[in-house]
């Protein structure tokens, strides 16, 4: 009760006269000082034209909206947690189930090679790395369609939404990585071949490349889906297809001929191989391949951002 009374008192009397002079005057003064400067030409802070420049990525605006990235991330996390019984446990259950299914189907039944690694670890390493990329891609690819309501009513830097999705997925990846490391330790104690190597230090680089790939491809798709709805369904299918051209199910070393080239063309191939080399001790790492993936990611992000900004200007007219 006393608290409520205090609030009332504050807002009733003090607020109106208080805030305005204290906080408004400086900006007004600054502006007047600015416009009274050398020329009478007023300086505009915002100019809206029909078309923006192609490579104007408006990074400054994005930087100003960085709090939104954090808030969206936190909103999604809280909402996800509140609506389920198991909550964050899902982060753990999902990769575990996938790994078990893969171990049974590809390992026990199909007897695919695993570079001499324990099957469980082999598939889990692939799953954990792939999930971060695929999750980021599929989630960001719905940016426009899923947020049509909000985007139609209020303007804020739109890229904050896909960036917050990257962050959410990064948390999931972190949790899954810890789980994976737990299993690695267990298998090492059991005396299997798996061992962490110095290549594990490459992890931050791998994460950045994966994030770039997921974000870049995701926002390219999200920009295109505003016009071509068919792509929504294609993405889910396409991501699955892509998975089979990575060494997630069978190691790169076991493949030769044309198929090997197809796998090498997939920018996620070198990531998964490097990830395995780092944490399990077996996998192919070559600098050109990693550079290829990094270049691919960079291109995708830039192309995506350009397309994204194109579409965001008139997207509300097409949905």
């Amino acid at each position, binding site marked *: 009760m006393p608290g409520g009374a205090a609030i009332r008192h504050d807002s009733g009397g003090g607020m109106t006269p208080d805030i*305005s002079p204290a906080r*408004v005057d400086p900006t007004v003064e600054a502006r007047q000082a600015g416009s009274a400067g050398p020329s009478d030409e007023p300086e505009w*802070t915002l100019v809206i034209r029909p078309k923006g420049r192609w490579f104007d990525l408006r990074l400054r605006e994005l930087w100003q909206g960085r709090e939104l990235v954090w808030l969206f991330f936190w909103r999604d996390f809280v*909402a996800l947690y509140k609506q389920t019984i198991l909550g964050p446990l899902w982060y753990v259950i999902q990769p575990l189930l996938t790994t078990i299914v893969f171990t049974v189907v590809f390992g026990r039944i199909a007897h695919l090679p695993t570079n001499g690694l324990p099957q469980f670890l082999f598939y889990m390493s692939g799953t954990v790395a792939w999930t971060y990329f695929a999750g980021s891609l599929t989630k960001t690819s719905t940016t426009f369609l899923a947020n049509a309501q*909000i985007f139609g009513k*209020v303007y804020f830097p739109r890229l904050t939404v896909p960036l917050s999705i990257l962050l959410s997925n990064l948390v999931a990846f972190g949790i899954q990585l810890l789980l994976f490391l737990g299993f690695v330790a267990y298998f090492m104690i059991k005396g299997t071949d798996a061992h962490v190597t110095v290549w594990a230090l490459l992890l931050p680089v791998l994460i950045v490349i994966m994030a770039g790939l997921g974000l870049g491809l995701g926002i390219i798709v999200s920009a295109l889906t505003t*016009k071509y709805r068919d792509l929504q369904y294609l993405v889910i299918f396409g991501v699955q297809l892509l998975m089979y051209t990575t060494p997630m199910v069978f190691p790169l070393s076991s493949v030769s001929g044309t198929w090997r080239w197809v796998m090498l063309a997939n920018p996620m191939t070198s990531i998964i191989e490097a990830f395995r080399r780092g944490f399990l001790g077996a996998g192919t790492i070559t600098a050109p391949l990693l550079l290829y993936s990094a270049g691919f990611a960079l291109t995708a992000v830039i192309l995506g951002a350009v397309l994204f900004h194109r579409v965001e*200007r008139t997207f509300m007219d097409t949905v």
Partner: protein
Amino acid sequence: MSTVISIEGVSKRYRLGVIGGGTLHGDLSRWWARVRRNPDPSLPVNATARRGADGDTLMALHDVCLEVEEGEALGVIGRNGAGKSTLLKVLSRVTAPTSGTIRMRGRVGSLLEVGTGFHPELTGRENIFLNGAMLGMSRAEVRRKIDDIVAFAGVGPYLDTPVKRYSSGMYVRLAFSVAGFLEPEILLVDEVLAVGDHAFQQQCLGRMKDVTTRGRTVLFVSHNMASIQNLTKRLVVLENGRVSFVGPTTEGIQRYLARGASVSSSLADRTDRTGREPGALRSISLLVDGEPVDDTAISGLPLKVKIEYDTVSPGELQFFMAVYDQLDRRIVHVNSMQTGLRNEPAPRRGVVSCTIPRLALAPGKYSLALAIDANGETLDRVERACDLFVAMGDFFGTGRHEGADWGLFLFDHHWAVES
């Protein structure tokens, strides 16, 4: 005073129908045809490409030019589809103009709809931060204002409850409060005042007025002539995407209403009716000072309500009209017997009218209910036959319109110094 918004030749074209064919295949084949310089395969045989390009488009805004001064409150009115909302959307950067340039100075905040982005699972406090950030407030800014926001919305005790458990009234109040405490140099507002109960609407109006008196520039789009009149001094009337009037608010409203030429609103499809012969009331139309209008009357001027009826029941006909305020309180109820309408033997179909020589309703939103009786038995009754907005006119004959909350009625009076 300097110009803070400058709109130069802004147009916005919408393509009607399916955009760009909608399928990848269609667009690809069109593109391929263009590469080979063949005619567009998806056009009808006789159509030329040019007609296809210019054909099914709608100019929501057409060469709009406007300058808004610093600290000015500018009202924007127009019929549905006149381009009001499109103008605000373009200004708030939700969508880009097709041509033209807009220049603005200062931070722009827009209130196109309250509660955008509220998440039902989050608590009131969490939503304040999220919504505030979306509207462009920093976290520090929200933290500074949160007490005021909460007090204004009156949701103090429920601040840490998920908003999905809020009543719709609380939800809307909180949503407005967050937006209402956004303090940009330029504020764009679209019809948001149509939220909450009467008391809260008055509170919102007060808040908006507050904002304008503090040197902020406000662009206010509304259907409610009373609040437009209350908040703004200058008015823009949009007609089919073009600016048809810029000038003093009162003059603008009168001109806008005079251009009305509305058709009568039919009551045929209404199902919310009672009586022995539903459908006997056919339509209702309003005339202000002899000019047909949509839904807005002006206090001080004559208002004529025309009722078209068609019945098969014999006997003496009586007509009833009631005025309800926004809280659905019946504030006036009149009938044709009181004023001695003689219509015996009455024609079974026709038009009757009820004229109020000098409308004494205070500015605000009302609704009209109609009923028709034959020999004392109700044939047809439609509650909310039409909405009635009342704008302030020169009721007192002094040419002055000051006042914030007029209550429900105006009456003739004069003040005098007695000693």
